[in-house]
């Protein structure tokens, strides 16, 4: 890939006769430039996906409620996210009088930075990850657990009551569901015997069914069905999406930690939330639905399968939002601590016993 890109550049700049002086300039820092190019190749499509996910969300929820949804800007309303982005970009960023100025701006940055950094280890196809880290899954856990700081700092620095309540709710909720999420991942590690995301996907491509052309029955979702459900629901709770959106419950605390933010500062939180949604959908597809693997033997593996699976989970996110009423706060805590955590503990024991028994299929 690297050679192909280099040849393309050589051809393009060679037309103007500029290739040799340019290459002399770039060659010492080429590894850095190459990594930066890969980062841009991940972040740019991601941001575009975020923009069109908001559009898709409004359309889907519109259809589910027998409305049309956004349809004024561009054909079928397709330019709506661009218009929204422009509006947010040119809006004034207001800072409340009593706010802690530095932290007020650190908040949104702390929200979006981990949401983007986590993508570094996600494998999009075989060998297609920015960093093929041995502790990849652990790295993602670390990055997503830092997203909470953006919310807490923003809520505190606003020096306002609703944001502070939102921050308190967010920290309690995210810390609780992180535990269920981490425990669900332990079972995935146990059966794939690796923390490397690419290895986890490859482990799902092995097995009796995969050899007989029905790969989707070899994926992790069957032996780990309860963990699959726990992980995805915890993911919905981690991203503070409906029905777990008490953090920004409109009818109670207006918009939670985002109340005092406007313009791009607000847009940062928005981008972070949607980037996290896509991340949870991607991870669920990679860990439980075989990532880039094809469900059937006669079709080739590739990025398109991952895209289909991600879209499926993103649709579930939107479907949930249009369907379920918001959880009461104590019910959220009960679900996390009294249902999910014990369930994951039991399933770790079940998988553990299965693996030491003679019927172990995870070799």
């Amino acid at each position, binding site marked *: 890939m690297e050679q192909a890109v280099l040849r393309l550049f050589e051809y393009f700049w060679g037309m103007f006769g500029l290739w040799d002086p340019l290459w002399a300039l770039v060659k010492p820092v080429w590894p850095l430039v190459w990594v930066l190019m890969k980062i841009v190749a991940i972040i740019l499509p991601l941001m575009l996906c975020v923009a069109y996910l908001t559009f898709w969300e409004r359309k889907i929820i519109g259809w589910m409620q027998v409305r049309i949804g956004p349809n004024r800007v561009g054909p079928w309303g397709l330019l709506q996210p661009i218009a929204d982005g422009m509006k947010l970009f040119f809006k004034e960023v207001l800072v409340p009088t009593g706010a802690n100025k530095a932290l007020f701006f650190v908040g949104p940055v702390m929200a979006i930075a981990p949401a983007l950094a986590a993508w570094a280890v996600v494998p999009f196809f075989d060998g297609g990850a920015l960093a093929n880290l*041995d502790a990849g899954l652990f790295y993602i*856990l*670390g990055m997503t657990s830092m997203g*909470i*700081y953006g919310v*807490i700092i923003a809520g505190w620095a606003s020096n306002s009551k609703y944001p502070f309540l939102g*921050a*308190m709710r967010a*920290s*309690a909720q995210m810390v609780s569901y992180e535990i269920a999420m981490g425990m669900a991942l332990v079972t995935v590690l146990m059966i794939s015997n690796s923390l490397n995301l690419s290895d986890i996907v490859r482990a799902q491509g092995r097995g009796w069914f995969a050899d007989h052309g029905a790969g989707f029955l070899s994926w992790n979702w069957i032996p780990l069905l309860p963990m699959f459900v726990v992980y995805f629901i915890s993911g919905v709770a981690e991203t503070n999406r409906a029905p777990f959106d008490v953090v920004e419950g409109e009818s109670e605390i207006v918009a939670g930690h985002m109340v005092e933010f406007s313009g791009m500062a607000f847009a940062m939180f928005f981008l972070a939330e949607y980037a996290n949604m896509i991340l949870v959908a991607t991870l669920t597809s990679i860990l439980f639905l075989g990532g880039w693997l094809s469900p059937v033997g006669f079709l080739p593996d590739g990025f398109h399968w991952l895209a289909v699976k991600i879209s499926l989970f993103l649709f579930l996110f939107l479907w949930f939002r249009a369907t379920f009423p918001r959880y009461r706060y104590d019910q959220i805590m009960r679900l996390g601590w009294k249902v999910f955590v014990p369930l994951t503990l039991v399933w770790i024991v079940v998988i553990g016993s299965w693996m030491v028994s003679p019927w172990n299929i995870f070799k």
Partner: protein
Amino acid sequence: MPMDFKTALFYILSTILVIAALRVVTARNPVHAVLFLVLAFFNASGLWLLLQAEFLAIALIVVYVGAVMVLFLFVVMMLDINLERLRQGFWSNLWLGGPIAVLMVIEMVAVLSARSFGLEAMPEPAAPAAGYSNTKALGMAIYTDYVYPFELASVILLVALIAAVVLNLRQRRDNKQLNPAEQIAIKRKDRVRIVSMPSEKE
């Protein structure tokens, strides 16, 4: 003499780490102090990454930055801390605190001096073989050689956890908690009675 990239990175990370650690104790606002502590942890984890201990580095982030410090921040934000009262006893307690601080510095210098941690005492470890995973090495060490100390530590943590719950457990009289199973099992006929009665006015 030009430095190689790793050395430069080491100096950047350690400079930020030292400054952040100093700010933890000097920051006037306790919330700022906690956030500087987070920054310090983050840079310490970067240093561990430079030592090729990626599992420990990420564990530091997950455990301390991701969980412990969030709860710290949570508590510090909720507390109404009076800075004047905290500073009150500074001069009157200095005669005790000062010598203890000096003693600690002397101890640290004695332990971490060049004699015990210099290049002669601690030579650079041999480059790991291909396919070496320190996650796996750590797991092997914890679950074979050190399995009893490890289990003991986890039992102590469990006891602390249960103790914390028991100490805070008290039945409140105004508790309005409901049993969700009972709530779901409610049927209409348990709550509503429809009475058929003739109208009272002609």
